[in-house]
């Protein structure tokens, strides 16, 4: 951005923040809160301009723009840096957490910091704060109550190896498809299911054509305020402290909001005829235990630590 060196007292700093979520998303509201926090803390010295809805390019391209310095902050998940480092594969390990509490405990602990530090060293990207996305669920056109029901299910997945492996291991027929085509795909029967956090089913109207949700909770994840590590290290201490504090405040706030909205989304979907089913996770966990074997050794180590809880 304009103030890439950001620092010397009195100097105006202008940052560009980009993400691929909509203007109403929690990600965008968190970005706005971060901008407010920073502006207040710096007495108007730091301004953050927000570009939602992939206006600056896909998140891959925005990350690259961060590295060359035309974008300063990008909101995305850990998995988004997997093409830079295998360590980011930790996000895609299925059925890793018992529940939301287990997930929060893990990432609030020192292990969470350790993982982020390792990712920074290997990829160059520093992932700060967290905007909780909630667990990913299985949203289908037919009821799925157990693993047997899911056999041969045509489920849309992003075109990534771990996703495909996971859903193949579960006996389904994973179908890579671009996100834009999911609604019409479900409507016409080209696919029978999609997997995402529950808000996705609501706000993309998927529930209208796929009114069943199985609480598989196969993945938990958050989005993070990503920075180019060297840029962050180049800031003076005062700026860094100001930034860290602003991000911490947003993270605390957004976790609370995310949990509230999760309940709200479930209530909305139930009112609109969606049937939720709890599954017995044991068989799902067992079917996918081997997936982690092909991961980076360090990731396997972390997985073992997390599973021990």
């Amino acid at each position, binding site marked *: 951005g304009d103030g*890439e060196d950001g620092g010397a007292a009195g100097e105006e700093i202008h940052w560009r923040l980009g993400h691929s979520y909509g203007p109403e998303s929690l990600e965008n509201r968190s970005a706005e809160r971060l901008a407010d926090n920073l502006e207040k803390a710096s007495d108007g010295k730091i301004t953050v301009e927000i570009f939602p809805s992939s206006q*600056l*390019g896909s998140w891959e391209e925005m990350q690259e723009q961060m590295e060359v310095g035309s974008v300063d902050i990008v909101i995305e998940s850990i998995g988004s840096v997997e093409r830079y480092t295998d360590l980011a594969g930790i996000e895609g390990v299925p059925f890793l957490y018992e529940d939301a509490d287990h997930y929060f405990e893990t990432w609030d602990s020192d292990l969470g910091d350790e993982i982020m530090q390792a990712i920074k060293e290997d990829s160059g990207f520093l992932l700060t704060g967290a905007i909780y996305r909630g667990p990913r669920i299985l949203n289908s056109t037919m009821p799925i109550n157990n693993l047997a029901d899911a056999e041969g299910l045509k489920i849309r997945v992003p075109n990534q190896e771990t996703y495909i492996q996971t859903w193949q291991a579960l006996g389904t027929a994973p179908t890579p498809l*671009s996100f834009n085509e999911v609604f019409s*795909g479900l409507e*016409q029967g080209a696919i029978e299911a999609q997997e995402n956090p529950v808000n996705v089913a609501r706000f993309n109207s998927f529930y209208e054509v796929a009114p069943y949700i199985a609480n598989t909770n196969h993945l938990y994840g958050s989005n993070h305020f990503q920075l180019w590590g060297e840029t962050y290290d180049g800031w003076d201490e005062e700026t860094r402290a100001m930034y860290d504090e602003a991000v911490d405040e947003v993270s605390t706030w957004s976790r609370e909001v995310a949990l509230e909205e999760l309940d709200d989304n479930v209530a909305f979907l139930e009112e609109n005829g969606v049937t939720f089913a709890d599954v017995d996770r044991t068989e799902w966990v067992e079917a996918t235990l081997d997936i982690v074997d092909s991961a980076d050794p360090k990731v396997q180590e972390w997985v073992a630590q997390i599973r021990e809880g």
Partner: protein
Amino acid sequence: MPAILGVGFAVLLLIGTPVAIAIGGASLLSMVLSEGIPLEVGAQRLVAGLRSFPLMAIPLFILAGSLMNDGGITRRLIDFAYAAVGSIRGGLAAVNILTNMIFGGISGSSVADASATGKILIPQMVKRGYTAGFAAALTALASTIAVVIPPSINLIIYGVTAEVSIGSLFFWGLYIGVAFGFVYILTAYVLARIKGYPAEDRVSRRELLRTSKDAVLALMIPVVVLGGIRFGVFTATEGGAVAVLTAVILGGLVYRELTWAKVKKSMNEALMLIAAIMLIIAMAQLYAWALVTGGIPSMVADFVLGISDNPVVILLVINVLFLLIGMVLEGNAAIIIFTPILLPVALAVGIDPVHLGLIIVINLAIGLLTPPVGISLLITTRIAGIPLQESVREAIPWLGVAIALLFAVTYIPLLL
């Protein structure tokens, strides 16, 4: 640096700089003049415009269209249309429109269609007493159906830019395109009655059967490609590859007209068109980025919404704007540049983005007829060998019909 994006772009365009470079050059200049924008981002936007999976449908459908011309598929479609609708009043006009409708189901661009069908049908129409201006205007108009009926390059680019389902755009494009075709045939019939244009001899049942049999496989191509996309067997991009495959099989193995030499010629011709169109699309990514970081879309959105928040008025503004844009700007670039500006406005007043896409694409289809830059009309006028004002004069009633249809597509959904 919005001034550079507007004025700089216009100047470059007017002195005859290739459209792609006028777009890219103006964007780079604006990035240089803005503070703190590393130019690497310019290079990156160019790659971004090329490495998009949905956009890859474009070169494939261009290639498929080129192979179909060289494989004798186009000619069979015309023979079939002749046997099917030639015997109604104004028969050759109807043949022209029907051929373009079928061809439009294979090809994604109007330019190829205007030249392929015009070369065969315009001389025939003139021989049968149609004025050359009428023949040129009609062929140009009929060729624009190809950008509404899927596969359509314009619809693909809109779908990618606006992040809406290309499948849905295609679905509605098919209905609207076919409806347009039938209204045009009806109009041709009425005009033929007024002007006394003839019907062609009714062909024998045997001839109809023969041409149908000959064309049935060619007619199956749009069915297979569009059906496959519609029912989720493959995406639009994969559908492009399927279209290329069917063109090669049909032209090479069944009709046996597609020789190696013809494949090479088709390929080279397609590559030139691909290079020209894809460079514009890729450079338009630089422009869009410069616009967004310059804050233009939100500025325009605030301005337009300040005038009115009534969707009827907003849609009118959008239509007038795109009719003007279509007079001077190449359609694909127009979509990439103006969609990010107008989509937020449309969404703010509750206009469906799929609906908006169809409206924009129909506007730009009309732009293929309007001077000074109406490439379809330029091509058919040249084929007819007449001055432009003659075909423009004959195009006016057709433009009236097209604009009436545009307004029907714009406002009927609001009433439903």
